[in-house]
């Protein structure tokens, strides 16, 4: 079985500074994988490399065995990898309903059509309503996304990313800035929408990580120092030193 995502000696430099310094990582299909590490370790950069926001400086990214390095983001999305953003990244002037529908149109094969009327596409709209129901925003669906509360915007962010039913979903700090109860809801939501799919997430909240992840990778200064089950990572001395040491320095 080919891995869902396979990174081989992946590198990224900005000018003379190398941020990602040769990452090798294999994420299996259906796995829930968390990437943790101190601030500035390059977690978000790694996400941007996989999802096509940045071009890679060296090495390769494979999705289901196919090389996707340096493809534009929309090509990667079409191949079945969808992502959310650490900083909420939605369509602020459009309604919640439209935001989710935008995340569905390509996969429903509407492409750049100017001969379908979106409001008349029953299946598209029903699926949109289902996704909105799942993220719990049904009562808010007609208001502009820009006026939602922070937690609601985070839920919408996940909703847009997951709406298209991509096989692999990457979530960049999905619970950042949430209260305890909001975080619990977010975990439930993530569990629900990623059922049977490959999930890669960056997360600072260790509660969330140990709750959700099947395996954890620890990224420190652009290198993965360990990939293992939550249990082993928790007990690993090397991880504790590198991670907590770096954390203490801040």
């Amino acid at each position: 079985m080919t891995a869902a995502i396979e990174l081989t000696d992946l590198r990224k430099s900005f000018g003379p500074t190398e941020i990602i310094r040769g990452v090798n990582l294999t994420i299996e299909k259906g796995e829930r994988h968390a990437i943790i590490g101190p601030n500035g370790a390059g977690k978000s950069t790694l996400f941007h490399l996989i999802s096509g926001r940045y071009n890679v400086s060296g090495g390769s990214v494979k999705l289901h065995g196919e090389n996707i390095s340096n493809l534009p983001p929309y090509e990667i999305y079409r191949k079945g990898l969808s992502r959310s953003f650490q900083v909420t990244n939605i369509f602020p002037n459009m309604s919640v309903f439209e935001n989710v529908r935008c995340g569905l149109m390509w996969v429903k094969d509407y492409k750049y059509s100017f001969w379908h009327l979106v409001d008349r596409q029953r299946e598209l709209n029903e699926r949109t309503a289902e996704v909105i129901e799942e993220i719990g925003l049904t009562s808010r669906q007609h208001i502009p996304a820009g006026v939602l509360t922070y937690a609601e915007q985070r839920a919408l962010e996940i909703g847009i990313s997951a709406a298209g039913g991509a096989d692999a979903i990457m979530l960049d700090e999905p619970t950042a800035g949430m209260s305890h109860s909001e975080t619990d809801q977010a975990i439930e939501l993530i569990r629900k929408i990623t059922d049977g799919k490959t999930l890669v997430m960056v997360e600072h909240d260790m509660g969330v990580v140990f709750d959700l992840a099947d395996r954890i990778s620890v990224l420190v200064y652009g290198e993965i120092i360990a990939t293992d089950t939550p249990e082993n990572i928790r007990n690993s001395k090397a991880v504790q030193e590198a991670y907590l040491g770096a954390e203490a320095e801040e």
Partner: protein
Amino acid sequence: MSEITKTASPVASRPLLKTLTPWIGFLILLLALPNIFSSNVGLYTMNLMGIFIIFALSYNMLLGQGGMLSFGHAVYFGLGGFMSVHFMNYIEDGDFTFPMYLIPIFGGLIGLVFGIIIGSFSTRRAGTVFAMISLGVGELMAASSLIFVAFFGGEEGVSGDRTTGPELMGINFGQDIHIYYLIAGWVFVTVALMYLFSRTPAGRMANAVRDNAERAEFVGYSQRKVRFVSFCASGFFAGIAGGLFALNFEIVTEENLNALTSGTVLLMAYIGGVGFFIGPIVGAVVFTLLQSILSNYTDIWQLYVGILFVLTVMYVPQGLTGIIVMHTAAWRMRRIGLLVLPYLRAGIPALAMLTGIATFLETIHHMRSSVEGETAMSLMGVDFDSHGIVTWIVILALVVVGGYLTRSQLPQLRDAWEMANKPPAKAEGAGS
């Protein structure tokens, strides 16, 4: 599950009649207008309005819907006009037979072709890059219109004759009223098409790319292609507007594709409100009215339009339509009455101030442009001396007193606005 279908249904199957009502109203309005304003000036103004409505709406497909600020939209309008006037001449010469009323199709096609050519490289980025390219292309076209004389006719342009085509039920478009109904028909069809375009996946994604181009790429859409589709459609409709211009005026010149016309359409769309579909329609109507009515009274009407534009950009970026929409909340709660008196209290001194400013501008203009030694002038039926001390005291008094009183009335206007837009008491009770 029942809730899902319930929430999905209002979008999916809105009652057809409700959807169609505004369109039927629009059609009736278009048919009724020439019976209300039947004078030649009225028809002339309405014809121009119709052409500008299509032009401004096509422009808003770029600016309002797609987030592309273009300084060269007149290129497609002008090319559409030239193409159409050439085809009018081919028909006149008997080179081929084609109904005259469908001529704007050719305008639309050349707009589309140039939209494809220019859009293929200019839609790569939005923002400053796009704006600069559009400006460059606009200048390029305006310059080449004086070089390629065979197509553009040089300084005097190209003229045609719309009455030479095959007659349609005895109508050869010799009369203004005929051309009015022709333009009205095209306006109705193109406005409907442009509205429908905004409701297609391409139109929705244009909004999404405008809002957040990067995010659109992560849901599978290339921002460049989304812009490209809108750009081509916009060129097509601008070309149709140009074709109607050619039919209406029977002459097209370089002026129709230069920067001035590009600026005009930006002005119209913005004054009307780029955030609303009907905004550019409002803008085109207001602009044409200002142009044709104000220009009867004053030489410096363009200055007033410019001031209106600057004030819109500074204080009401949502445009005139935005001002109307702002009042819908108060209207629904039946509290609009609360605003009448405060508006009058602030409006009357504001009007005095504006009168003072306008008189100042007119008097200065008269001093600069009148015959040497002539100081008597007339403004809205009032005769006075442009060098007289009384004149200047009145101007100063109007501006200063009007300005002061307007300012003093603003707090009560603000309070009244708060009152009128307060959420209903019932909702407050339920909330607490």
